[in-house]
Every structure is written in structure tokens, then in C-alpha cells.
């Protein structure tokens, strides 16, 4: 059904269509509309879920963990300080191999206080064992949320999935989007290690030094196994519903001498910058990284690389630039831009390409 709404509303409608049994949530700007909409769906009866309003984000993830451990489908949403508050439970949920799905409205961390878009919140959860996908349109927010359930619950994976959408830039803008009838696109959940009340046991119990590493290794095995599952899920989504997604999205890259790489809404904005640069005679292209975990190294083939990070690792550098450099061997021009909702236009992005100096770092607003 063709409709229109915000990124938040699209996520909420995808959750309604994926039919989780338990939703536990705590409100936080700019995510609140997601859980408000879901609460509406539960109240009006279009989603037969138990909605648990909890006292904190640590509790919302804990409630999802408890519910998911019984083998049911669960969802929550958060942002920024809420996400880092649930950090302990982020490790717990991935470690317990529970296929929880969560939307995160990317927002800066304070102080200084700021509610604008930034990826520092989700990137600080990089090593928890959660899969992370970053979306760039309202339609993609809907589609990626539906696909997240199928990917997380796949028995080769059994890891939680976080859908990241830029605060305000996507959570609060309105676009047209199409909802679907998922049917059996998301098979019934079948968690193999779900609690069995007829065979009681202790879950997540002591693993001494001679066994603990086996469970850690299996998280990485699941992470690597998620790559073909993502590819297969995106292909099946395209077959059924017509919209095409890939591990990363390329724009005019075939003959490009220089590629711009970013995640989220900047990854869409830079397509306009590529068109501007092409008119000037610069053979530019763009690669929008969709999956940050698992990390998928794009084909760069010796091209110049400009990476825009809406995040920063203090004492190190832009995180995406650093990971791309480590995995591909490229020497990126690392641009730090868009922190705390700092406005970055397509003209600004085109300028990053014009002034690029491979292997150096450039803070937008500081170094220009």
C-alpha cells in the first residue's frame, strides 16, 4: 500500500507487519514516535503484542532478552544516551544469541547537549555482536526493518539486528513509501535454544576458560554466516516486493577515479555531489555503506577515496575511514562532518572531493 510518513512511522509500520509478540520500550528523542505508533497499533488491535512500558533503556533491552529467551519475536527502539545506557544488555543479548530487532535513531551524545544526527551512539556498540544496518530513505527504513527480523532469526545467524536511521534527517522527514504484505517472507521464529519449561536449566551459565572462547567464536561464525543470509534475504525481498538492495550501494562507480564513501543520509546526499562533480569533468562515484557489522569491504580497485564520518574515535580518527583503510589498504581523505546534526550540503560534499589530500584528516568547519 502506497502511503506517506516519517522514518519513525515507517519503522513502526514495518514492526506492525512483522508481528512481534513483545515490544518493550522507553521513549527518547528522536525515536519516541516509533514506540508511540507501536503503542497505538497495540491499543487499536492491529498488532497483537504485549507492550511493556519500562523505566529505562537498560530495562527495555532486559525485557526483550527475557521475552526472546522464551522463543518469541521482540522489538525495541532507542537513541543516543538510551542506547549507551543499555550497553550491558547489548552484550548480553548478542552473547545469549537472541534475535532481537531494534531501531536506533542516530543522535549525538552529550555534553554539550545535542539531539542532532550523529553515528557515535551506534558505533560505540560496534563490538557487542549486534548486526548494524544504516538506512538512507523512509522506504529503506521500512524495508530494512522487515528484513532485519528474517536475518536475525535465521538459524545460521541468531544474532540481534540494529536498524540505524539518522535522527531528524530521517526520523522526522516525510516521504512516500510502500508497505507490503510480508506473508511468509518472515518465517515463524524458531529459536533452537529457547527456554523449555518441561526441561528446566540455567541459561547463560558459567563458561570457564576452557569453553568460553567457543561461544565467542560462534558469535563470529554467526556474523560471517549473516553475509550470505543478508544477500539471500535482499534478493528474496526484491523478487517478492520489487525493491532492490545490496550489501553496499554504488552510484556511478564503474569508471570513477574518486569515490565518496559514507553511511546513512549523507550516503544519499553525496549522489547529488557526484552529479555536480561529473558536470565539472571529475569522474566521481559514491558508495553508501549499508552494513557496518558485518563489515563488508567494497571493491575500490585503487580509486581515490573520500570517506565522510559522522562519528569520531578520539585518539584515533574517523571510524569508517579507519576500518576501510585497515580492510582495503586505501589511503582515504578522512572527512569528519555532520556531527550533532551539523548541516552538510551536496555542495559541501563536492568540495571535500575537490580539496582531497589522500591519507589526511579534515574536520568540516574547523579545517576550512
Amino acid at each position: 500500500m502506497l502511503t506517506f510518513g516519517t522514518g519513525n512511522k515507517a519503522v513502526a509500520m514495518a514492526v506492525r507487519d512483522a508481528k512481534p509478540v513483545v515490544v518493550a520500550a522507553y521513549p527518547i528523542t528522536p525515536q519516541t514516535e516509533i514506540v508511540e505508533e507501536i503503542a497505538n497499533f497495540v491499543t487499536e488491535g492491529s498488532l497483537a503484542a504485549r507492550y511493556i512500558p519500562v523505566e529505562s533503556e537498560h530495562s527495555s533491552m532486559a525485557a526483550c532478552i527475557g521475552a526472546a529467551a522464551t522463543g518469541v519475536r521482540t522489538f525495541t527502539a532507542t537513541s543516543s544516551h538510551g542506547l549507551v545506557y543499555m550497553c550491558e544488555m547489548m552484550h548480553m543479548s548478542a552473547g545469549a544469541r537472541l534475535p532481537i530487532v531494534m531501531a536506533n535513531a542516530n543522535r549525538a551524545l552529550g555534553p554539550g547537549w545535542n539531539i542532532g544526527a550523529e553515528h557515535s551512539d551506534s558505533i560505540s556498540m560496534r563490538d557487542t555482536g549486534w548486526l548494524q544496518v544504516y538506512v538512507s530513505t523512509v522506504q529503506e527504513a521500512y524495508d530494512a526493518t522487515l528484513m532485519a527480523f528474517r536475518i536475525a532469526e535465521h538459524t545460521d545467524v541468531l544474532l540481534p539486528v540494529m536498524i540505524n536511521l539518522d535522527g531528524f534527517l530521517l526520523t522526522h522527514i516525510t516521504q512516500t513509501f510502500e508497505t507490503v504484505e510480508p506473508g511468509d517472507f518472515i518465517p515463524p521464529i524458531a529459536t533452537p535454544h529457547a527456554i523449555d519449561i518441561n526441561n528446566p536449566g540455567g541459561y547463560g551459565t558459567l563458561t570457564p576458560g576452557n569453553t568460553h572462547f567457543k561461544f565467542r567464536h560462534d558469535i563470529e561464525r554467526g556474523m560471517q554466516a549473516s553475509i550470505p543470509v543478508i544477500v539471500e534475504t535482499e534478493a528474496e525481498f526484491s523478487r517478492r516486493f520489487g525493491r532492490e538492495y545490496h550489501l553496499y550501494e554504488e552510484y556511478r562507480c564503474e569508471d570513477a577515479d574518486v569515490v565518496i564513501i559514507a553511511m546513512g543520509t549523507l550516503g544519499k546526499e553525496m549522489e547529488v555531489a557526484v552529479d555536480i562533480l561529473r558536470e565539472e569533468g571529475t569522474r566521481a562515484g559514491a558508495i553508501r555503506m549499508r552494513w557496518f557489522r558485518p563489515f563488508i569491504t567494497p571493491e575500490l580497485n585503487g580509486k581515490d577515496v573520500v570517506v565522510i564520518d559522522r562519528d569520531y574515535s578520539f585518539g584515533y580518527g574517523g571510524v569508517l575511514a579507519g576500518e576501510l583503510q585497515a580492510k582495503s589498504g586505501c589511503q582515504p581523505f578522512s572527512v569528519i562532518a555532520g556531527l550533532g546534526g551539523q548541516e552538510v550540503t551536496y555542495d559541501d560534499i563536492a568540495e571535500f572531493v575537490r580539496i582531497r589530500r589522500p591519507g589526511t584528516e579534515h574536520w568540516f568547519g574547523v579545517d576550512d
Partner: protein
Amino acid sequence: MSAKLAISRPGEGAAGKTGTWRTFRPEIDLEKCNKCGLCRLYCPDAAISVDLVIDLDYCKGCGICAEECPKKALTMIREED
């Protein structure tokens, strides 16, 4: 499927006969005991049966039963070396 999560099922004596850890042994004075069963309920090792017989193979001698007994019918006695 490879192991996803450490799950332990209940079993007797998975850590061996933990009674060997004991320094003090509980003894019941049946004259004072009123069979209330609090000692059994509080025992963290389920080492006291419904008939209030203490299983000394698994009792670690923690003394919680003696602490909780309202009739002071349980006494902790130092084990001989």
C-alpha cells in the same frame, strides 16, 4: 548446530561431593525440633530432605539452617580433621 548458549541442566553432584568442603557440621536436636521445615527451605544446596534428614555428602556446612531455626534445634559442630 554448534553451541549457541551455555545451558546447564539440573543434576546431582556435578561439582563432586561438596560435603568435603565443610568445616562445621549441622546436627538436629529432635527434642527441640518442631518440624517447621524452615531449615529445608533455606538450605541453598537442597541438602535437607522433606523428612529433615541432612545429606552430609553435599552439605557444605554454611550454617544457614542453624541461623534460621526458630527453635535453636540446630547446632554447628566443628568437624574433626
